[in-house]
Structures are given as structure tokens and as C-alpha cells.
């Protein structure tokens, strides 16, 4: 057990005109998650500290935030990996509601804009639609997305222009564009060929580094760009 200092950017919409940093000292084990340290502050020092969390092991995507300046899930970073002084700030680019809680509605609106669901109007067979292991593998990486927004809010193109659809939405479009069972790749590619679509991506790789699911996002975006250019989803 040792004592670390958390410097947290606080904002309470009912009392504060602007956000300000506050320091907390808390005892942690090296194997504690950053989420555990935040919880200890909330539970035993300051109940007003506000953040989202649920599963606490990196699969629900609730607790994305900036930890020492980079987007991480607080439940997937251990204290031994962040040092004795840790700075915690909300994701950049969304309106802050309170402390680490940001307004996710624009993010989900972008997600919904890319038709993130299977479209196949042909009559389904009695049993499952067949898909080869290779065809299934084609989009495996992008099925891992948990919609935590760590990628989109690490993207300088998004910071510069909130209308940019953002890497998370492109990932979710990719998941269907390259699914052999889907029939609407063309419609999604048209959406992403828009001026706020994939071409805003400048291949900076921040999204790939930020992804807690280790999705190769920049690669996926590149594949979508290629599909638009060549008018084909063939490898």
C-alpha cells in the first residue's frame, strides 16, 4: 500500500462556472486499477466526485477518460503503471456534464448515422446463413468495439471539427461493410464518402493507440477509404 496523488479536473454544473483541478491523496495497491483509486476517493473522501463505471474489467466501455493525458479506460490501467502523481480529466471534444461525465449523445448520433446494423433483405434460409472462416475473419477486429469513445475523442480531426463522423462510427460501419452476409455496403460507403466522412481522417493513429480493445482502427479506416476509391470490398 502506498499513497498517491490524484489531480482531478472537477466541474459541477450547479456550482462551478468553469472546471478546476483538485488534488486527492489516496492509498492504493500497485495492482489496483485507476478506477479503484477513483472509487476510494468517491466512497471515503468526496462523494461528489462523479464518473461513469460498470463492469470494471474493460468490456462495457463506461469509464473512458484521460489518464495522464491519454485516453484510457480507468478499469484497464493499473496504478503501478501510472506513477505516484496521476492527472485525471474528462474525454476531450464532448460537453462536460459533471466531472468525468461527458454528453455521449452526439457520439451515439454519429454511430447511428452509418447504418450500424445488418441489412439483408433476401429471404433467409431455414438454417443459418453460411459464412466461411475467412469471410468471418475479414471483419473480426471491428466486432470488438465497445463504444467507449476513447478513439473518437483522441482524434485531432474530431477536435478540429465536431461534425467529423469519427473513428468509432467508421469502425462500426466497417464491421458491416466487410461482412459477407450484408447487402448495404454501398449505402454506408456513400455516407462515409461525405465531406464529414472518412476523408477527414489524416492517418494520425491516435485512435489505434487509444483503443482499449486493441482494434487496428487506422487500418480499418484505410480499408474503408480503399473500398470507396476502388468501389469494391474485395481484399
Amino acid at each position, binding site marked *: 500500500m502506498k499513497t498517491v496523488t490524484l489531480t482531478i479536473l472537477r466541474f459541477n454544473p450547479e456550482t462551478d462556472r468553469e472546471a478546476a483541478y483538485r488534488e486527492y491523496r489516496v492509498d492504493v495497491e500497485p495492482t489496483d486499477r485507476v478506477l479503484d483509486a477513483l*472509487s476510494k476517493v468517491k466512497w471515503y473522501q468526496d462523494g461528489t466526485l462523479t464518473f461513469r463505471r460498470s463492469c470494471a474489467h474493460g468490456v462495457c466501455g463506461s469509464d473512458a477518460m484521460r489518464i495522464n493525458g491519454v485516453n484510457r479506460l480507468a478499469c484497464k490501467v493499473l496504478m503501478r503503471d501510472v506513477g505516484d502523481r496521476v492527472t485525471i480529466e474528462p474525454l476531450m471534444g464532448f460537453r462536460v456534464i459533471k466531472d468525468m461525465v461527458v454528453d455521449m449523445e452526439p457520439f451515439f448520433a454519429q454511430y447511428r448515422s452509418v447504418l450500424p446494423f445488418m441489412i439483408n433483405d433476401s429471404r433467409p434460409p431455414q438454417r443459418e446463413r*453460411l459464412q*466461411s472462416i475467412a469471410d*468471418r475473419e475479414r471483419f*473480426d477486429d471491428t466486432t470488438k468495439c465497445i*463504444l467507449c469513445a476513447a478513439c473518437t475523442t483522441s482524434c485531432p480531426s474530431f477536435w478540429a471539427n465536431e461534425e467529423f463522423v469519427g473513428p468509432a462510427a467508421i469502425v462500426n460501419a466497417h464491421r458491416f461493410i466487410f461482412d459477407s452476409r450484408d447487402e448495404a455496403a454501398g449505402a454506408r460507403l456513400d455516407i462515409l464518402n461525405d465531406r464529414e466522412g472518412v476523408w477527414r481522417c489524416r492517418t494520425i493513429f491516435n485512435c489505434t493507440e487509444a483503443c482499449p480493445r486493441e482494434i487496428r482502427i487506422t487500418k480499418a479506416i484505410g480499408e474503408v477509404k480503399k473500398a470507396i476509391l476502388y468501389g469494391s470490398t474485395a481484399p
Partner: protein
Amino acid sequence: MIHTHTYDALVVGGGGAGLMSAIYLSREPGLRTAVISKLYPTRSHTGAAQGGVCAALGNLEEDHPEWHMFDTVKGSDYLGDQDSIEVMCNEAVDVIIELEHMGLPFSRTEDGKIAQRPFGGHTHHFGQGPVRRSCYAADRTGHMILQTLYQNCIKNGVDFYDEFQVVDLLLSPDGRCCGVVAWHIDTGDLHVFHAKAVNFTTGGFGRIWSITSNAHANTGDGVAIALRRGIPLEDMEFYQFHPTGIYKLGILITEGVRGEGGVLRNDHGERFMERYAPTMKDLASRDVVARAISREIREGRGINGKKYVYLDATHLGADVIENKLPDIADFCRTYLGVDPVREPMPIQPTAHYAMGGIPTDIDCRVVTGPDNTVIPGFYAAGEVACVSVHGANRLGTNSLLDLVVFGRRSGLDMARFCKTADLPPLPENPTERIEATFARLLATEKGEPAAKLREEMQDVMQDHVGIFREGPGMEIALAKVRELQERYRSVLVLDKGKRFNTDLLEAWELGNLLDLAEVTTVSAINRTESRGAHMREDYETRDDVNWLKHTLVTRSDEGALDITYKPVTITRFQPKERVY
């Protein structure tokens, strides 16, 4: 400020059961449906399920729904209702195909069909040996189910109220269900949702124990609200401890590891399950394996004498682990610094799943009393409910199956019900009760934090109402829980604001957890036999003469808990000794 909304049907909870229900409701033209969820739906705990969902597709070898039914009945230690189990296993095949058609990216066989693997307690020829029945998408099957259902809700234009915490159930003066009260977490405002039918799909309550695979959000809200509104809770003494949680953290390591060939080893390196279950070994049902691990630990054969054993997958090879079990490999590397390709994983049993809950019939209609009286318009499906397909012990994969089968059935029956039902009147002052609760929680100026009370509850439940139970220990737990309920009256909420007050939310959730810890313990003390997950060291055997029946616990107006019973439905398979 109080807002009012009117719908035909409400679904409370955005996990697998809720979203499946909503998809079916959204297919009914003219029917107005909303989903109300405390989280963004994609954050629901269905997404944490890993290993698969069983259906007798027979894609890799012979299989039949009848075998699946037998395994489920046997797994339930004969407490499951066989009419419900038959429905679930028969509809499994169709519902899995439907999920595939909706877009679910299952892993595939060489010939392009849905891939299947063995899972605990699932057998061929009525117990002759393991069968490949679990349909999976790597080790994130729950994630893919949740995403696929959410995607289809978006496609169908379902109305969502995200981050709205339902805090009360509304019953009209004539006893019909007529809506819910929800608390908009962002604004702190109360919303009255007036409707013909309400479906509770709010999940479980693993957070009453200290070592759990459950999310922070799994605080049993729906179960506790129902109890408070006079609805009985069924079979609450039956709570599943999953054999393999990450040591100290409780994070789930899927049974799929053992399905792929992983084995459990004690401090001597012995594959000890061979002694406890000669036929199924590491793939015996979960209660059997969790007890075996606990016994090894208690008898000093935990690793280095500590409270864990090893789950060894090192012989499976990097390919199997990276391709079929990538997420659990990531968990082990992240939280333990252990690479399962090269080293065994330190595991201990972890509180995982509630077999008990709100009693329903096979159409998910909530029923009360020994004669199953229906509360018109009130439904429940998934872990929150007890349709009793799991009885005293659930088989792995059958929770995801329960969600999709009974999520669908609930949606279908609600749609049918809403077509003919009228809108019942709301009670007077529908928000009165929750406003009083919140006012009391916020008024306290001096008291203990919710976290302190919660930790004490979790510790005492872990010590005395866990895998092994006996009367005196459980009495200690019950006394402690009641002491904590008393201290909870002056729980201290430091955040007095309206906006996104998660301090108040956690305090309210703790009230639910304490009530459910009380009901669980009372039910467990009362059942003087051992069956499935309920293992009593002072009553070590199953007692079908006296205890082949469901427990129903109701909170009386005076606050006491009353216990009654109802019979088990037995159709095909008569109870017999349970050996794996």
C-alpha cells in the same frame, strides 16, 4: 419537476432480455414502446458473458433438444420447472438461427456453419459424455448478442431513455400494473411512465458478495422494487458461484477455457476434478466444480496454501488461446501479468448468477402465490426473473439462452396483451414514495458512507452465505444484515445536488442490495437440505420428500418476511441421484 410519458409497453433494462423484448414489441405496428435503462444499453452486463449460448443445432455431432432438456433438468438438481425448460430447449434452435439472421457474427465451422464447443454439464445421450452444443463468437458471445440486439433496436427505431434509473413500480388501485417511476440521472428529475404493460429485465445482484463477476451496476434494482411492492421472490437461496473468477478480483474466466480442454490443478499439480466427477471431470456442472475448488482450498491444497487453484490452459497452444479465448488472455495479462499461453491462471470461485428472482409463468407474466395468480400487465425476463429454468443450479450458456428465449416470449405476449388491454388509471401521487426515500437519504448530515456498509455486507455474505453454508453462520450473517439495515437509515450522502448525483444513486442501490441480502439469507436458513448451489454442511443431502418445492418470500406490510411454497413442475424426468 415531474414529467409524464404514456406508452403501450415499457421495457426496463437494456440488456439481452430487454432488447430482445423490445425488438419483438417494435415489430407490432402502432404499438408504442420505450426501453428505460440505467446505463447506455451497450454497457449492460450481458456484454460480459463470454463462452457461448447453447442450442442443439448438431452442427458438429448428433444432438437433440431433448438431451439439452435433460441436462438442464439434471443441472437444476430437479428444482427447475420442466415445462419452462422444455420450452427453452425447444426454442433454442430457432432463436439462435434468428440471432444469426439478425447479423450476429458467430465463429464458424470449416463448412461455414455456427461453431459449437463443449460446456459444463452439457452431454449427449442423457449424461454419457460432453457434447459440442455451445454456439460462440470467440470468447465474447455476450458482447456480440448485446451489440446485435442493440443494432436491431436502432434499425427498428425503438425509443430509448438511457441513464434513467427506474425507482418504483406503479400498480393501479385494482391491482394492475400501470407504469414505473424513473429518475433521470443527468437532471435529477422524476419521470412517470404510464403504460399498459411493463417488463422488468433489470438483471441480477452479485454485488451483495465481495468476490463477484458482476458489474457495479448489478444491484438487483428490479428484484428489490418488486419485493417492496408486495410481489414474492422465488428461490432466492439459490445463487451461483462460478468456479473460475480471477483471484481476488472475481473477473470471470469463461468455462469455455475448460470447454477447449483447460484443466484445474491444485498445489500438487493434481487434476483434482477426476476425483469429484469421474465422467465429466472439469466439465461437471458449476456447483460441483465450485464446491470441489473450495474443498481443495479448505483442505490446504490451494496454491501455496492460499485461496486459489490453477486453471491450466498452457497445453492448448497459442493458436487456440489467441483465436478462441482472446479476451480472457487479455484479462490475465492486464490484471495479473500472467500469460495463459505459458502460465496457469490463478482462480477462485466468484459470485455470478441469481437462479431466483421474480416468479413468472412461461410467457414471462409475473405471478404471485402458490396458485400462480397473474398480475395483469407486469412481466419479467432474464436474470431478474425466476421462470425457473435454472432451478437450484444453472448450466453454463443457459443464461444467454434464457435472455433471448424469454426476452422474445415476453415481447410477444406483451404485444398480444397491449392490443386488447386499456390503460389502467395511475395511483394518486405516483412519485410520493420515492420522493420520501430520496428526501430521507439527502437529509442526513451525520452518518456512515454507503461504501462502508456495503463492504461489511459483502464480507459477511461471502463468509457465511457463500458456497458452503450452515445454520449458525447464516444466523450471524442475518443479524449483521439487519444491523446494517438499521445503520442504513442514517447513511450519509455527501452530494446534495440534483445533476448526475451518483452518490445518491449508490446509496439507493445499497438499500436494494441489503434487502436482497436479507431475503437470500432468510431463504437459505429456511431450506434445511442441500440442493444445487445451496450446500448446507448441517444438512448435507438433498431431501425430495420435504424440499422438492419452490420457496416464495414476501415482505408483509409490517416489514416481516413471510415464507410460502409452490410445487415444482415435473413432466419428463423424475428426480434421481445426480452424478457427473
